[in-house]
């Protein structure tokens, strides 16, 4: 059983001794050159007048009619160079900082902004609400496998300012770095940054220690989202970390080849990085590549497949060759909702192993997600934790030194002996048999172990009842409330969000 006791929030990135390199240098160059020729010859759509003007001024070839921006290779290189490879996604305290590009391993985070949740009490599926975000933020604060968080679900009870309500719920219940993937318009972006500034103490303090960042999704193939890109420009002006994500579906929104999909994906994300570097040189950027497949029988979106994941692992090398951190090899919770589902278990195990072996800087994994990140079941995070723990052990390899060769012990025990009575055995057993929800003694003598679903449920119940994330001061909480209240009534925000045309 996992020891359930109240503790301060902590993080534990997973550093792997095992490495996998999918691509050789020639292959990396081929994909990089492909992406550059797409940016230069075909271009990327930036449906924002502000972005088009910035590009035109910087020397890109801009067609204001079609909104296509063609980026000469030298312009791309000049601005990519300014993006830092190493920086921190800060938590409220320095020990909670996710250090990227500093050889600390992979930082896992809770993804989400899913629209649906499995109700913790009734087990029924329903639309998620703000209170669910708060609950899951608290669970993520408690578990050290989680280095940073997104609001895991959407606040469907909160209208157009829902993304800001999500951030408020996270700030109030989690001390780790908080990233948004739903603040996708200029007006909301300003509110979000104001909220983060309040938590940090000031905008300057926030720039110094960015405890908030944004990840936006490009539109495949070869386009940016208007709201997203305008939001990103606000974050760039504030100097906060910005990620660009591409989600090519092989054979649908990307070519049916891994390499070709990496070409289009990197053309999309690098064009975004270039824009933010033009606006504010040195802005911390990262990229995220999430390839997927289409179920060719039903048309359903299918994220977790082996061709998609090996493509994502390859993307790690491409990102690093461009001097950028990357979020890669995410587990998506399998194709259907069912705890103890074989497909989900298998998929998540190898995906996370690939994550740490490929050296991804970040990955969303322990999220409690199902159905391609559209459904949250909180107790599921305990299974994700279990998988990540196993991978931590596997990716550590084995230790060979004088102590572990144990020749003295072998001599001492000799023939037909038993190592159980040794103090070193007692000490080492803790490492060999780590805390788990899988091997609890049964209540029923017919079974060998308790049903881990029940153990997971009880664990979450305990965390929700007993864990108290370090609270923000009353003044800060009130200030956050005031900002979100104002956003709720802001007509320009309503117009911005609803008038997507």
């Amino acid at each position, binding site marked *: 059983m996992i020891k359930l006791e109240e503790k301060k929030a902590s993080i534990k990135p997973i550093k792997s001794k095992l490495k996998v390199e999918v691509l050789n240098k020639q292959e990396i160059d081929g994909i990089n050159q492909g992406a550059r020729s797409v940016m230069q010859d075909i271009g990327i759509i930036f449906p924002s007048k502000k972005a088009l003007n910035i590009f035109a001024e910087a020397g890109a070839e801009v067609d204001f009619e079609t909104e296509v921006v063609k980026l000469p290779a030298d312009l791309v290189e000049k601005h990519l160079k300014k993006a830092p490879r190493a920086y921190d996604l800060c938590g409220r305290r320095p020990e909670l900082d996710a250090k990227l590009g500093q050889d600390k391993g992979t930082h896992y985070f809770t993804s989400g902004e899913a629209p649906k949740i499995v109700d913790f009490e009734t087990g029924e599926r329903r639309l998620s609400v703000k209170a669910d975000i708060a609950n899951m933020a608290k669970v993520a604060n408690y578990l050290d496998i989680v280095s940073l968080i997104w609001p895991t679900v959407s606040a*469907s009870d909160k209208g157009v300012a829902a993304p800001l309500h999500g951030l408020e719920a996270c700030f109030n219940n989690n001390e780790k770095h908080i990233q948004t993937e739903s603040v996708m318009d200029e007006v909301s972006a300003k509110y979000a940054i104001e909220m983060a500034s309040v938590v940090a103490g000031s905008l300057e303090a926030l720039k110094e220690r960015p405890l908030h960042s944004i990840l936006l999704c490009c539109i495949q193939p070869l386009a940016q989202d208007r709201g997203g890109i305008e939001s990103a420009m606000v974050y760039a002006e504030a100097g906060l970390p910005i990620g660009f994500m591409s989600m090519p579906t092989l054979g649908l929104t990307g070519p049916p080849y891994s390499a070709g999909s990496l070409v289009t994906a990197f053309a999309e994300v690098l064009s975004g990085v270039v824009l933010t570097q033009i606006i504010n040189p040195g802005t911390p950027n990262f990229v995220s590549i999430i390839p997927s497949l289409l*179920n060719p*029988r*039903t*048309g*359903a979106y299918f994220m977790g497949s082996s061709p998609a994941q090996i493509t994502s692992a390859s993307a790690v090398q491409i990102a690093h060759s461009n001097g950028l951190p990357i979020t890669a090899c995410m587990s998506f919770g399998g194709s259907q909702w069912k705890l103890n589902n074989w497909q989900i278990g298998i998929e998540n195990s190898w995906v996370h192993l690939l994550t740490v072996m490929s050296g991804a800087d970040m990955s969303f994994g322990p999220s409690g997600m199902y159905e391609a990140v*559209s459904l949250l079941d909180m107790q599921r995070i305990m299974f994700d934790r279990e998988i990540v723990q196993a991978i931590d052990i596997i990716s550590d390899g084995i230790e060979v030194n004088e102590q572990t060769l144990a020749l003295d012990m072998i001599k001492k025990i000799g023939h037909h002996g038993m190592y159980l009575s040794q103090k070193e055995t007692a000490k080492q057993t803790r490492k060999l048999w780590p805390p788990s929800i899988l091997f609890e003694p049964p209540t029923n003598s017919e079974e060998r172990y308790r049903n881990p679903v029940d153990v997971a449920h009880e664990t979450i119940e305990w965390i929700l009842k007993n864990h108290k994330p370090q609270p923000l001061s009353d003044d800060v909480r009130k200030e956050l409330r005031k900002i979100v209240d104002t956003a709720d009534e802001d007509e320009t925000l309503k117009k911005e*969000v*609803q008038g997507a045309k």
Partner: protein
Amino acid sequence: MSQEMFDKLAQAVIDGESEDAEALAKQALEQKLDPLACITNGLTVGIQKTGELFASGEYYLPELIIGADAMKAAMQILEPALLSGQEREVTGTIVIGTVEGDLHEIGKTLVGTMMTANGFRVIDLGTDIPSADFIDAVKESGANLVGASALLTTTMLQQEKLISSLKDAGLREQVKVMVGGAPVTASYAKQIGADGYAEDAISAVDLAMRLIDAPA
């Protein structure tokens, strides 16, 4: 001679050869063949066979879509040549679109293609479509089905609005309303008074068939 042309048209659809299908359609008109017969005995036979190959697991979605594209290419030649009073037989007519404020396109388009491949006339309005545009399209086309897609929790509310707009326009009895999209569930569909919810493009076709009592 005409049967030979019908077979070739059908085969062009099965093979997903748009250019061939278009060229054959032109040839058929030059040979003064009846355009309606070309559609009914050629293209429709081809798309039905394509559908069967898909159902049996031989074909995957790309083949189905390429087949539907080939059919469309030939239809563009043959339909304008139909004599007045001639109308091709369709399973049903559906107006589909993604609701206002929502730009997600792919799922909706896949549903449209699958419906086309199953003999429906599909009027695809695109994305970010206000309820009023759905209403206009239903009036204009005499559709008996409406499909509304929403991918955001903030835009799914527009599906409910569309249903009440259809009521206000006196069209609710004329059409069956199908809803879909990531945040949408069967219970939500029921709650807002839709006639059905489909999880993916294949089940959307099954649902449409059931709703209008079409033979499967």
